[in-house]
């Protein structure tokens, strides 16, 4: 098999995930797009590992080992990420990342909302200490 096939598929999948990360508004959809990008990297790792294990007599199988590590880290990432998204949804009532502008510079279009956002942060801190 030509190495170009998995490499091109991996590049296209990565860019699909990139579009999802940039264009999606729901935080869980952003996490799904991150999973797509990680899977594109995994496909690249496996393809190059299979190529190098024959072409260069490479016996470490570092690509497959790294793929397993990436899968495990992705599982940990999705668990922590969903816990964070759930915590944000519990505190703010939304998982919409366009509306989480507490650390944004300057006044956004919702500048009138800054007071409630600040008190929301205070409420979150009180919740964290309670």
């Amino acid at each position, binding site marked *: 098999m030509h190495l170009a*096939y998995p490499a091109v*598929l991996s590049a296209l999948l990565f860019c699909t995930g990139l579009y999802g990360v*940039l264009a999606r508004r729901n935080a869980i959809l952003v996490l799904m797009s991150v*999973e797509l990008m990680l899977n594109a990297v995994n496909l690249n790792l496996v*393809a190059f590992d299979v190529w190098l294990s024959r072409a260069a007599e490479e016996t470490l199988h570092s690509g497959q*080992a790294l793929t397993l590590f990436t899968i495990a880290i992705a599982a940990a990432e999705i668990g922590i990420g969903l816990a964070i998204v759930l915590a944000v949804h*519990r505190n703010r009532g939304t998982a919409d990342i366009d509306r989480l502008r507490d650390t944004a510079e300057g006044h956004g279009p919702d500048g009138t909302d800054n007071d409630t956002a600040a008190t929301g942060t205070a409420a979150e801190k009180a919740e964290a200490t309670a």
Partner: protein
Amino acid sequence: MTLAATVRHLSAGPATTAAGTHGFLSPTGVEIAFLLVGLVTLGAAVLTVTTRQLVHAALWLVVALGGLAVEYLLLTAEFIAWVQVLIYVGAVVVLILFGLMLTRAPIGRSPDADSGNRWAALTVAVASAAALVWVVVDAFRATWIDLDGPAAGSTAVTGASLFQHWVLPFEALSVLLLAALVGAIVLSRKAGSRPARDAPPTNAPPTNAPSTDAAPARQPSARNAPAPNAPAPDAPGKDGDR
């Protein structure tokens, strides 16, 4: 192009001499299967990032991840393929569906699934896709993966390499998974205690905001009614207890 590829193969040294007769215009059966499954995978991935129904996005993600597992099988990486099916299709997608359910995602079509900068995102994605595909094709159009012989990723081979050369990262990874597990429990443990304390403000945070300075100080003291020292310094005391 096939002639140039052949010349390039023949001059590339002993590593790729097996590819001397292969061109893109005469694909093998494995390549055709890879191409078809790859088209399905890419289509499912595009639908995942473009559909406006959130649950459908998660289900299309299942198709994309399953297609990638088939690609791993075609690359003779069997162990990775089944790990992919077990962890991604089995666990990660279920977690995502739980997350969608717990954040009360709308079942039907949600018009605000895409943010306002989708055209900028499309520009960036298309530009990076063009650049990556150009570079990758230019670099690896003459490289041939030899799939004959014993599988490069069978369970025996992967297990041997993993437990001979990668034992220390493997154990470190188990520690990382434990830390992630504990972190996820700590982050989501307040989900169990919060509705018991103040369930109604969860649905409407703006109504929670004006009463923030009074409510969180009062309600924990009401909950810890048997042994409060004073209502005001209750929160630091509880903090010290934990």
